[in-house]
């Protein structure tokens, strides 16, 4: 399925809304295994995305994704800034060639892997992006995919980012970046797939 620039805008605005509504929860999750700022980082970042989107006048998917990337890179402030930023930047580049949704999300996943040198099973946002990408390839992304990914991320031991410092103590906890990425894909389901 193809992603249009209008859908992409609605998707990002919905993501902003979900992050904003769950700001305190995301920070709380981060407090347990990190430094407690993931909610405020992402709220600041998606707020900047919202602002930037207002100024995108071109009818172009690439422009929408690139502005989102720039906003996230500039404003998040935590590790999730360069990570989400790299994801959207990679998607923007891919959008020059295709607007096929699963191809775009897979490019985003690759951008995150390239930036953070993490992989599946390290208890990061990758453990949300990877199953979502697979589901999209099979035309089968639903809330079940996201809920399952969250279940699966819990028992993992963090190997990257701040949570890696507490190693085993991270086992049993949700990864804040996986949760915020879950919001991103719920927003995608609501605005694009529904």
């Amino acid at each position, binding site marked *: 399925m193809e992603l249009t620039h209008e859908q992409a805008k609605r998707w990002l605005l919905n993501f902003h809304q979900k992050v904003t509504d769950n700001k305190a929860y995301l920070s709380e999750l981060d*407090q347990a295994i*990190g*430094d*407690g*700022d993931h909610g405020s980082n992402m709220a600041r970042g998606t707020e900047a995305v919202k602002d930037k989107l207002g100024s995108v006048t071109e009818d172009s998917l690439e422009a929408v994704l690139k502005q989102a990337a720039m906003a996230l890179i500039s404003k998040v402030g935590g590790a999730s800034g360069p990570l989400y930023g790299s994801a959207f930047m990679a998607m923007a580049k891919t959008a020059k060639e295709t607007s096929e949704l699963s191809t775009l999300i897979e490019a985003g996943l690759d951008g995150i892997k390239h930036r953070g040198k993490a992989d599946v099973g390290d208890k990061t946002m990758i453990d949300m992006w990877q199953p979502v990408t697979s589901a999209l390839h099979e035309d089968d992304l639903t809330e079940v995919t996201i809920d399952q990914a969250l279940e699966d991320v819990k028992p993992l031991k963090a190997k990257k980012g*701040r949570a890696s*410092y*507490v190693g085993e*103590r991270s086992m049993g906890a949700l990864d804040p970046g996986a949760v915020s990425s879950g919001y991103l894909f719920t927003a995608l389901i609501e605005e694009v797939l529904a």
Partner: protein
Amino acid sequence: MTLGIVVASHVDHIAEGVHRLLKESAPDVSITYAGGTDDGEVGSSYALIEAAIEQNDSDTLYCFYDLGSAKMTLEMVSEMTDKDVTIIDAAFIEGAYTACALIQGGYKQAEIDDQLEPLKVK
């Protein structure tokens, strides 16, 4: 008793900034700091380091320092205090961050020592 952390730097702003960084990931750990000389110059102060050690809530302390001369001042204070002071020769910020995150996470001293070992660079 759980470990406390003391941060000793040659510069007041470094010490204060490191404290800020550590507190984010370890809000429940007692972290005290000393930076610069009594007059705010670059250097180390016996009085400020002594105060950081005495004012820490814990009696068992891991102390981190940036450069060698802060270590000497830490040693002088540690010879005078009743507290159980260990000076850690690890990378300053990286070591202090690791120790704080682990204390906050409820790890035991032996486990913390293991994690600090590969960070020893001085």
